[in-house]
């Protein structure tokens, strides 16, 4: 489990994240939503160990400040928003970099084919020999996801759950691949790992997330299930946008359509 307690992050003089607490359990898909500039990415960078913070963050009971980089690399993998390269790596070479930490958890005989398997998973079968720089933005994003999956291929290793941190994993993807990637994250959680993702799409969030953290002006406005979190009031207050939250008959999945906006 990832436990975030009273975490504040300052960049320069301004406090970007203030007193945020939530738990992201193993077997759960936790989604962080919120308007631009609400502190989502800064919070994610603190979770990743990239930024100094006040408060405590622990992973499986150990404070991340006490973990070495290589220990953390075996417990969680992080997908950045985008990655540009200055050297002509092939797709397969990039995916293979995910195995740098050497703790993919794949069976010994499957290690050599792991990059190919990961590429199949992100619907890029046969792309191994292509040059990364020649791919579209969405394809590059999926290559990076394949790399990240290689790092924590088994969601549970040595009895400990492992985690995926995804920063806007579907922002540059078409709808088919949005669903494929969300399903990968869902599947990772169902097999015992934990996923924390930043998303902008409230409908995908509502469809796949177990738990939503709503960020607003650096604070966690609310933490809860989609039905608890997605309400007309909150969307008006947080996004400053009067939208009507709908519900599908017979299902507990709320949806938000921009067409319902009262402009």
């Amino acid at each position, binding site marked *: 489990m990832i436990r975030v307690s009273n975490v504040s992050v300052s960049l320069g003089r301004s406090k970007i994240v203030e007193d945020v607490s939530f738990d992201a359990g193993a077997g759960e898909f936790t989604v962080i939503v919120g308007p631009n500039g609400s502190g989502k990415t800064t919070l994610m*960078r603190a979770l*990743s*160990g*990239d930024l100094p913070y006040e408060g405590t963050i622990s992973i499986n009971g150990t404070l991340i400040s006490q973990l070495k*980089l*290589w*220990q*953390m*690399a*075996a417990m969680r*993998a*992080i997908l*950045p928003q985008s*990655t*540009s*390269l*200055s*050297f*002509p*790596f*092939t*797709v*397969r*070479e*990039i995916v293979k*970099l*995910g195995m*740098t*930490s050497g703790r993919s958890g794949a069976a010994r005989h499957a290690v050599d084919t792991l990059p*190919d398997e990961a590429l*199949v998973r992100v*619907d*890029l*079968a*046969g*792309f*191994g*020999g*292509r040059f990364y720089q*020649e791919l579209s933005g969405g394809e590059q994003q999926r290559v990076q996801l394949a790399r990240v999956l290689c*790092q924590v291929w088994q969601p549970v290793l040595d009895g400990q759950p492992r985690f995926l941190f995804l920063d806007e994993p579907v922002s540059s993807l078409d709808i088919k691949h949005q669903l494929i990637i969300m399903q990968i994250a869902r599947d990772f959680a169902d097999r015992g790992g934990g996923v924390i993702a930043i998303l902008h799409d409230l409908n995908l969030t509502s469809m796949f997330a177990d738990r939503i953290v709503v960020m607003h002006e650096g604070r966690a406005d609310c933490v809860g299930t989609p039905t608890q979190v997605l309400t007309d009031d909150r969307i008006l207050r947080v996004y400053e946008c009067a939208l009507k939250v709908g519900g599908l008959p017979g299902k507990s999945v709320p949806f938000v359509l921009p067409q319902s906006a009262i402009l």
Partner: protein
Amino acid sequence: MSEAILRKSAVLASARGGKKLRPDGDRSALARAVIACLGVVLIATIIFSLAFGASDASVIAVVKSLISGAEGTESALSVRDRIIIYDIRLPRIILGALIGASLAVSGAVMQGLFRNPLADPGIVGVSAGAGLGAVSVIVLGGTIFAPVVALFGLYALPLAAFFGALAFTLILYRVATRRGQTSIATMLLAGIALGAMAAAYIGVLVYVADDKQLRDLTFWSLGSLAGASWIKILASGPLIAFALVISPFLARGLNGLALGEASASHLGIPVQRFKRIAIVTVAAATGASVAVSGGIGFVGVVVPHLLRLVIGPDHRYLLPAAALLGASLLLIADAVSRTIVAPSELPIGIVTAAVGAPFFLWILLRRRGILDL
């Protein structure tokens, strides 16, 4: 569905044409084969360089003599040839190979560190910094730096060049890199400023130098392997050996760094410590080679670039391959410089610049978008 994708990628791959890449994109077998070939090429280059020149010892005689040892009683070589080969050519060849290897490796490491295929110690002012250190010792060695020279003896020159290179690399890194992102334009501009700064200080030192020092400086600054000796190998060998031994351990970090500093640390690479080691390695390799041979330009940018086209940018293979190819190329350039205007000889720096500078322009022409990164 996946069949359609396979077909599409096959069509795209063939449309791109030319490049024969295994469909799974794994170039490690190719890279190992290339490294083995380069090893053979280097050995061949060394043997031919030994036999090549004003004296007419045959290749076979040289090989026989090498196998039986220098003092072999049934040496196939005349006494005169033995002196030429063991006291003149062999140190020059060893030094040339070491310097070629260190130039190519320092270029490759620096490019990986700056995430930029144009970063070369010669282009971004690091060699100039090493030069400033070296010139300081040559000119001021009798006066201000006399205690330093007395303390370090023949190591004073390479050490001064090392510290010059180290200082300039640190300044460059500090100026050009913000939060782990290197701005290529800033890096190149900072390199111009550092080069100009070093040139100005060197100018002052040249101005105060006496006649003998001036002659030393002129020879040195043109870049030459002439005057190679076992003493010079002893002086700069340790620094170069240090850099060449360290560099394979940098490969994993350089590969991770290609993804950016944050992603590298997420993969478990201790980025800050790694960068410090890489900077010291670049400075050691550049400093030592500049101290011995002056400015031999473009080896550091041409060799890694050529190799990346063939075996890809994986530093586990790129670094050893660069060392081998750099050594071979410098020996060939040296052979050209020894013979093209025989019996006189051209400084090797002129040969490498004459070939390397147009090549560099060609890289720019092909990848003009490189500054937009």
